C-alpha cells in the first residue's frame, strides 16, 4: 500500500505535528507555521482517501493486535470520510483563527495549546477511521483527555471546576456505560467490527438490545443527550478557538458520529427498526432538542447560548439516526457536516466580538453589526443555517430529516423539528436584529472595529462554506448515501 492511501498516515501527521510544535515552542512564528502546515498536510492526506472511498473502496490499516482476536485497526467508510473531511478541513481555518485570537488576547501557554490541539485532531482522525469499536473507544478516550488541558486552559478556579464537570461526565459515561456496552457486545457476538447491517442481529433478546442501546447512547457522553449534556456548556470556559473547533466540531461530532456508527454498523438499522425496546430514543432526543433550545433562549451569555444550541442540534443527529429510516440516517450524516460549518462560524463570530469589543453577553450586542459588519454577516449566515433557511446548508439536512420523519409517518418527530426551528429563530433572530438595527447601548464611546484579519478571514471562509454547501452538496450527499449502501 502506498503512503498516500493509508489511513494511518492521517493519524501520524497530526501526531508528528504535535511533536514538532512542541519542539518549535520557543519560536512562535515557526510554531504557528508548523501548525498550519500540519493542518494543511492532514487535509491533503484525507483528500487523497476521498476518491477511493467514493469509488467504493474501503482503505484499511492494521495498527497492532491489542487483545487476542481484537486489533487496533483503521478502515475508512463513507461516514468516517465525511467526518474526517469536515474536521481536518476546518482545522486549517481554525488554526488561522487561533493565531489571530491567541495573539490578540495574549493568551498564556500557547505551545501547550497548539500541541494539545494537534493531539486532539489525531484522536479525531482515529475516531473517524476506527475500524472497530475498540479502536473507536481508544481514540474517544484520547480525545477526552487531550482536550481537558484545552478546556482548563486558563487555569483559574472556574476553569478547574469546569474541567471537573467535563472530565467527570465524559470519563464517567465512557468508562461506566460505554465500555460496559462494548464488552457486552464482544461477549454476545465475539466481534467488534463495524459491519453493514450490524453485528447484533439474532444474538440477543429485544430487552437486551434495548438495554445495550441505552448503554451506548448515554455512554457516548459526547453526543450530549440530556441529562448528560452539562459538560458542553461547562467547556465554554475554554478559549473560543477550542469551543469553535472542538466543542462545535471535533468532540461533539465525535459523539454523534459514534452514535450513528453504532446504530448503523453495530445494531443495524433494519435489525432494530420496529423494536419496542428502542422506541425511547427518539423521545429522549426530541426532549433534548426542545429543552436545550429553551435554555438557549434564556441564556444571555453568547457562548452559553451557542453551547445549548449545539446540545439541541446534536440531538437532531441522534433523532435522525433513531428514526431508523434510510433517508433520516442520511440526514444524520449530512447534519454532522452541516452543523459543523455553521456552528463554527457562529463561534468564530462570538470570539471575534469578544476580541474586538470585549463583549460576551447577548444583551450587549446592540449595534455591533455596524462596527463589525463582516463578522455579523457571517454570524447571520450561520444563524440562518441553524434555523434551516435556504440558501444555507442547514436547509438540506433539515429537509432530509423531515422527509425521513414523514416517510414513516412519525409526526411527533416532525413536530419536534418544526418547534425547534421556531425556537432556533427565536434565539438567533433577535441577536441579528439587535446587532444591525439597534443603537449601541453605551452610546458608542467605546470605539472598536473588526477583529484581527486572520480571524475575519477564517469566519468569512466558514460562512462562505455554509452557503457553498447549499449549492454544491454533492460530495457529502454521495458519502451519506453510500453509508447505508455498505
Amino acid at each position, binding site marked *: 500500500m502506498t503512503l498516500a492511501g493509508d489511513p494511518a498516515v492521517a493519524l501520524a501527521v497530526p501526531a508528528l505535528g504535535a511533536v514538532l510544535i512542541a519542539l518549535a515552542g520557543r519560536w512562535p512564528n515557526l510554531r504557528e507555521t508548523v501548525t498550519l502546515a500540519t493542518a494543511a498536510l492532514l487535509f491533503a492526506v484525507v483528500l487523497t482517501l476521498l476518491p477511493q472511498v467514493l469509488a467504493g473502496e474501503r482503505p484499511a490499516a492494521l495498527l*497492532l*493486535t*491489542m*487483545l*487476542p482476536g481484537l486489533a*487496533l485497526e483503521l478502515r475508512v467508510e463513507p461516514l468516517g470520510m465525511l467526518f474526517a473531511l469536515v474536521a481536518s478541513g476546518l482545522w486549517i481555518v481554525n488554526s488561522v483563527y487561533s493565531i489571530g485570537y491567541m495573539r490578540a488576547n495574549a493568551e498564556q501557554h500557547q505551545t501547550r495549546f497548539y500541541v494539545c490541539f494537534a493531539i486532539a485532531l489525531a484522536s479525531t482522525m482515529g475516531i473517524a477511521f476506527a475500524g472497530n469499536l*475498540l479502536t473507536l*473507544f*481508544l481514540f474517544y*478516550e*484520547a480525545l477526552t*483527555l487531550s482536550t481537558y*488541558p484545552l478546556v*482548563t486552559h486558563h*487555569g483559574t478556579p472556574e476553569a*478547574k471546576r469546569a474541567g*471537573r464537570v467535563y*472530565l*467527570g461526565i465524559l*470519563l*464517567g459515561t465512557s*468508562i*461506566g456505560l460505554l*465500555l*460496559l456496552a462494548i*464488552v*457486552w457486545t*464482544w*461477549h454476545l457476538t465475539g466481534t467488534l467490527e463495524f459491519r453493514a447491517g450490524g453485528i447484533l442481529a439474532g444474538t440477543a433478546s429485544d430487552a437486551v438490545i434495548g438495554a445495550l442501546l441505552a448503554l451506548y447512547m448515554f455512554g457516548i457522553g459526547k453526543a450530549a443527550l440530556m441529562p448528560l449534556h452539562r459538560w458542553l456548556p461547562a467547556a465554554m470556559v475554554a478559549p473560543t478557538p477550542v469551543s469553535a473547533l472542538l466543542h462545535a466540531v471535533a468532540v461533539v461530532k465525535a459523539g454523534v458520529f459514534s452514535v450513528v456508527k453504532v446504530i448503523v454498523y453495530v445494531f443495524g438499522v433494519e435489525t432494530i427498526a420496529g423494536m419496542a425496546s428502542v422506541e425511547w430514543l427518539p423521545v429522549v432526543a426530541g426532549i433534548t432538542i426542545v429543552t436545550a433550545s429553551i435554555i438557549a433562549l434564556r441564556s444571555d451569555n453568547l457562548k452559553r447560548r451557542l453551547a445549548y444550541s449545539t446540545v439541541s442540534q446534536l440531538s437532531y443527529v441522534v433523532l435522525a439516526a433513531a428514526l431508523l429510516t434510510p433517508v433520516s440516517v442520511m440526514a444524520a450524516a449530512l447534519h454532522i457536516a452541516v452543523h459543523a460549518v455553521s456552528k463554527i462560524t457562529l463561534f468564530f463570530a462570538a470570539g471575534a466580538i469578544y476580541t474586538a469589543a470585549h463583549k460576551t453577553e447577548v444583551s450587549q450586542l446592540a449595534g455591533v453589526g455596524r462596527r463589525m459588519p463582516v463578522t455579523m454577516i457571517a454570524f447571520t449566515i450561520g444563524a440562518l443555517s441553524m434555523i434551516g433557511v435556504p440558501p444555507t446548508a442547514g436547509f438540506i439536512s433539515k429537509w432530509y430529516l423531515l422527509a425521513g420523519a414523514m416517510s414513516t409517518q412519525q409526526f411527533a418527530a416532525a413536530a419536534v423539528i418544526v418547534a425547534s426551528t421556531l425556537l432556533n429563530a427565536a434565539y438567533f433572530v433577535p441577536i441579528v436584529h439587535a446587532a444591525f438595527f439597534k443603537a449601541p447601548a453605551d452610546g458608542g464611546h467605546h470605539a472598536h472595529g473588526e477583529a484581527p484579519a486572520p480571524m475575519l478571514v477564517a469566519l468569512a471562509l466558514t460562512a462562505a462554506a455554509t452557503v457553498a454547501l447549499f449549492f454544491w452538496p454533492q460530495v457529502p450527499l454521495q458519502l451519506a448515501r453510500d453509508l447505508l449502501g455498505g
Partner: protein
Amino acid sequence: MLTDHLPALQVVVPLIAAPLCVLLRRGWAAWLLAFAVSLATFAISIALLLQVQATGTISYLLGSWAAPWGIEYRVDAVNAPLLVLVTAIAAVVMPFARASVAAEIPAEQHYLFWATWLLCLAGLLGVAITGDAFNIFVFLEISSLSTYVLIGLGRNRRALVAAYQYLIMGTIGATFIVIGVGLLYLMTGTLNIADLAVRIGDVRQVRPELAALAFLTVGISLKLALFPLHLWLPNAYAYAPSVATAFLAATATKVAVYLLLRFGFTVFGQSHVFASLPMGRMLLVLSIAALFVASTVAIFQSDVKRMFAYSSVAQIGYITLGISMLSVTGLTGGIVHLFNHGLAKGAIFMLLGCVALRTGQPSIERLAGLGRRMPLTSAGLVIAGLSLIGVPGTVGFVSKWYLVLGALERGWWWLAALVLLSSLLAVVYVWRVVEACYFREPSGELQEAPLSMVVPAWLLVAACVYFGLDTSITVGAAADAARALMGAVQ
C-alpha cells in the same frame, strides 16, 4: 550444565550476595553488587520463563534429593511470569535507588540496607519458586523479616510504628500459615506441593483439612492485604523509604496472591475450595468491599503515598475479584492485573520517590505546581494514574477488560457495572493529584529529579503504555497460568 541449575541460582545468587554486601561495607560497592545481582536474577528469570514456555514445567531437586523427601523447586506457567515481574521490578528499581537511598538513609547504614534488600528479594523469589510448603514458610519469613527492617528504616519516625504494626500482623499471618502447613503435614505426611495435591484427595472434608485451609487462607490474606486484613499496609507503604515502597508495592503483595492461587487451586483444588465451600463468595464480597471502601478512603488522604497505598488495597481487590470468578477469563484478568498493577504502582511510587527527594514526604500541598517544576515526574504520574483508572492504551484497561468480560460470562452484569463504577473512584483520587500538580502555584523553587531516578521510573511508565497496547506477552502468560490453574484438578 549451568543452565540446569538456574532454578537454584534464582534464589541462591541474591541470598549469597546479601552477606557479601555486609562484608563489602562500602555503600557504593554494596549497591553495585546488589544492582549486578538484580540484573542477574532478571536474566535468570527470563531464561526460566522461556524454558517453561518451550518445554513445560521445570522440576529441580535441591541437592538431588528426590521429591517428595527432598526440597523441589518447581517452575511452571504460574510462577515463571511472577519471577520475571519480581526481578524486573528489582532491576528497574536499583539504578533509581542509588540517589533515593543516598537522600533518605544515613550513609553508614547503606551497606546494611542493600544486604536487607537482597535478602528480601531472595525471600520473595524463594516463595515463588519453591515447590515445598514448609520451604515457602521459610522464605516468607526471610522476606517478611527483611521487609520489617526496610520499612523501619524510613526517615519519618512513624516508620518504626508502621514496621512494628506490620511485624505484629505479619507474624500472625506467618504463624497461621505455618499452622496450616503443619496440619497438612499431619494429615498427608508430605510437604511437597505436587505430592500434597495428590494426597489431599484422601482426607477431604476432614476437620483438620478444613482447619488447614482456614489458617492458610487467613494467613495468606493478611500478607496480601485482602480487605479487611489490610490495616498494616497504608502506614507501611506511606512511611517506608521510597525505594522500599516502590519495590514492595509492586512485588510483595503479588507474591502473596500467588500463594493464594497455589494453595487454593493447586493444593486444595478449586472445585473443592470454591465449589463446595463458600470461599469464592467470601472472596467476591471482600474484593468488592475493597474496591469501594479502600478507593473511597484513598480519596480523602492528604499524604499522597498513603493515598496510593489505599489505592493498592483496592487494586488488590481487582486481583482477588478475578480469582473469585473461577473462570479462565476471570483468572486471566486477575493474574494480568497482578502484573499490570505491579507496573503501574511501581511507577507511581518511584515517581513519588522523585517528589520525596525534592520536597520530603509528598503531600497534596507539596505537589503544588509540580507540573511546571518537575514536568517529567508529573507527566509520569498522570500516565501511571490513568493506568490505575483503566483508560484504554494503558495496562489498567486490559485488566478491566478481562474482569468485566469474566463477570459477563458468569451472567453477573451487576458485577461488571460495579467494576467499572469503582474505576471512577480512581478518577477522583488520581485527579486530586493532577489538579495539585497543574492548577496550583508552586510554592518554592524545585528542580526535576536526577535522570538516574526519572529514567527508571519512566521505564515503568512506558511499560504501562506498551503492555496496554501490545498485550501478547502479558495476557498470553496470564492466560497460560489461568488455564494451568483451572485445569489442575480436572
